């Protein structure tokens, strides 16, 4: 008997990667993508956390240059960080299968924006697959490796929060897709993107995409439900599942490969129904592509660009209902845990009346009462640099109040660059950076990072020592303290540094209370 499992989309991707002979999985944590690599490791595969997404993608590219299969995982905003290698590896491609998972978060369950990364597929010229449930997440991942090798191009697997985290039935096909043998072959024309070779590569890329569009027309990634000819729905990803519940009688064309599009199949489908509605979460990318190709479809009203879709919202879209929607009941918002080491630090910053350039992590919650101590939050790593900008621009009395706060994982992600900038382009009033070192990547579910001394699978690893890094870059003062244990000590240092014109890094070090329990267990050999 074939065994059926109930798994999440992320668990399904991990299983598919292993059943495809994965050489290495590499990524940076980010909701809703983090469980993919955690599951790869738990199932015995090779997986690692890189310090950031650009590093992760580049390591993955190297694996694929050696003809290994590599999966690179990140949340949607991570692809912004990894965009530089993405656009050029789209030109050269790799001999080994390179699959990049972009986990988008429509509705921002846990993100700072709801950007629609389907735009990256178009902008970079990379084929994109969009699963709508766990089984497809599995099947598409396996096919993604094969397509990446056949067409010598990276493949973007676009997930969304609901597909990542919803559980559904999965039937695996072990050894479905044997991986090619690892081997290096020198091929400078393909792999060295100097202008002379890149000009050729760009033309090749466009030819590949035309071929991929023909392949998509053949229908492997198309599913059609033949229903009434009154209403046709073109859907992608999770919207397909909502559509089947909202309009069981409709004809539905589900697209699994959303770039490059099978426009002839779409045209034929639209011509066969009286009314044809495009259902997609986020930006109206598919609807606009259809209209630009002269296919008569209806998109959704602008109000449905925001947030996730649901069965109820799909019913409204189909009914053309644009009356205001009922606000979902407001639950209790998340808070810093009782006993969280960030709490005391924020109490002091609040009492000092600092202007706090914030960053991303649990500690962003310092913006809420009772602290209300965070003034800005843009993207990972931006606290140090935006703080420097404010120091440069503000009059002296105000500039002196500016402090940057950043977590340990975020510091290693893209914070180090900010320290380099600070030393190189020193503000007249100096600057104060507080590294909130809770010795874990807490926000995204307790992942390890280069400063925790443990690898992704929690076994021991060499440790990057944060104070050594900042000292080596050349800041004037590095202090280490624990505001929870000795608030006055921390407050005293902060006061002194704010009054000076020096460059100062204060490391507020105390483990996250949830991580501390786990760290003990790892030490005893548990996981």
């Amino acid at each position: 008997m074939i065994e059926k499992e109930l798994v999440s989309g992320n668990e399904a991707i991990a299983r598919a990667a292993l059943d495809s002979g994965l050489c290495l999985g590499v990524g940076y944590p980010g909701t809703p993508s983090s469980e993919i690599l955690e599951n790869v490791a738990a199932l015995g595969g090779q997986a690692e956390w890189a310090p950031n997404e650009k590093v992760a993608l580049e390591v993955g590219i190297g694996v694929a240059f050696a003809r290994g299969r590599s999966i690179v995982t990140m949340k949607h905003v991570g692809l912004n960080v990894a965009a530089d290698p993405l656009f050029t590896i789209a030109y050269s491609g790799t001999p080994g299968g390179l699959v990049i998972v972009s986990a988008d978060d429509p509705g921002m369950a846990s993100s700072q924006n709801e950007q629609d990364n389907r735009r990256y597929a178009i902008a970079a010229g990379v084929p994109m697959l969009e699963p709508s449930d766990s089984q497809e997440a599995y099947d598409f991942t396996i096919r993604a490796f094969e397509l990446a090798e056949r067409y010598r191009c990276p493949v973007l697997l676009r997930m969304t929060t609901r597909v990542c985290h919803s559980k559904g039935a999965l039937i695996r096909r072990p050894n479905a897709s044997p991986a090619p043998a690892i081997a290096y072959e020198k091929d400078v024309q393909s792999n060295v993107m100097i202008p002379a070779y890149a000009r050729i590569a760009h033309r090749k890329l466009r030819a590949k995409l035309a071929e991929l569009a023909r392949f998509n027309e053949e229908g492997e990634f198309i599913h059609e439900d033949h229903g009434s000819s009154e209403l046709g729905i073109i859907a992608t990803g999770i919207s397909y599942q909502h559509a089947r519940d909202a309009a069981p009688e409709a004809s539905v064309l589900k697209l699994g490969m959303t770039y490059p599009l099978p426009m002839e199949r779409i045209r034929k489908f639209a011509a066969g129904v009286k009314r044809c509605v495009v259902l997609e979460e986020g930006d109206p990318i598919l609807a606009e592509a259809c209209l630009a190709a002269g296919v008569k479809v209806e998109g959704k009203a602008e109000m449905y660009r925001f947030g996730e879709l649901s069965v109820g919202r799909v019913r409204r879209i189909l009914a053309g209902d644009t009356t205001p929607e009922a606000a979902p009941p407001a639950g209790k918002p998340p808070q810093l845990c009782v006993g969280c080491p960030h709490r005391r630090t924020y109490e002091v910053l609040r009492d000092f009346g600092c202007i706090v350039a914030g960053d991303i992590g649990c500690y962003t919650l310092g913006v809420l009462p009772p602290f209300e101590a965070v003034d800005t939050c843009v993207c990972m790593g931006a606290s140090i640099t935006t703080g420097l900008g404010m120091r440069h621009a503000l009059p002296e009395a105000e500039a002196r109040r500016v402090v940057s706060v950043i977590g340990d994982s975020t510091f290693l992600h893209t914070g180090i660059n900010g320290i380099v900038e600070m030393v190189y382009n020193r503000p007249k009033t100096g600057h104060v950076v507080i590294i909130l070192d809770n010795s874990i990547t807490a926000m995204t579910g307790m992942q390890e990072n280069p400063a925790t001394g443990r690898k992704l699978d929690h076994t021991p690893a060499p440790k990057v020592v944060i104070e050594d890094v900042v000292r080596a870059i050349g800041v004037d003062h590095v202090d280490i303290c624990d505001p929870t244990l000795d608030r006055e000590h921390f407050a005293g240092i902060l006061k002194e540094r704010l009054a000076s014109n020096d460059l100062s890094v204060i490391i507020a070090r105390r483990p996250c209370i949830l991580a501390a329990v786990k760290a003990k267990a790892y030490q005893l050999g548990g996981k």
Partner: protein
Amino acid sequence: MGKVVNITVAGLGGQGVLKVTDILAEALFDAGFDVKKSEVHGMSQRGGSVSSEVRFGDRVFSPMVPAGETDYLLVLDSTQVEVNLSKLRAGGVLITPDDVPLAELENPKAANILMLGALSRHFDLPEELWLKHVCRNLPEKVHEVNIAAFRLGRRGKNADR
């Protein structure tokens, strides 16, 4: 096609909402139903509202319970009843901490499993199947307390011994 049954479990972070839905989903899946389970993993921080959904039937499409179509609403925290009530359909079943013999529970950490036991009364699945998945989802050292909690919930409040 048979009707899809919708269950919503709600509470506060740290109460074991996701654990309960995992057990529920796996037991129903094991019993042969098509099952989908959905939740939004909040942030790590504790104490915020959490809710999670299970749908089962012959064939389930959307993993999300449509607004106002919950058949069974299990709320693990009294303060969370009101904010979740609009999810319940007219005539749906509501189970709150007031409806279960919480006072008889030895270990308050097993309250979520006790409530699952109370919910289990509404489905025609054998007790062993439920307990199998309770055990699968929890570390061995807490099996005994949770089995007892489940049975307590399944027996019901003020039930005859």
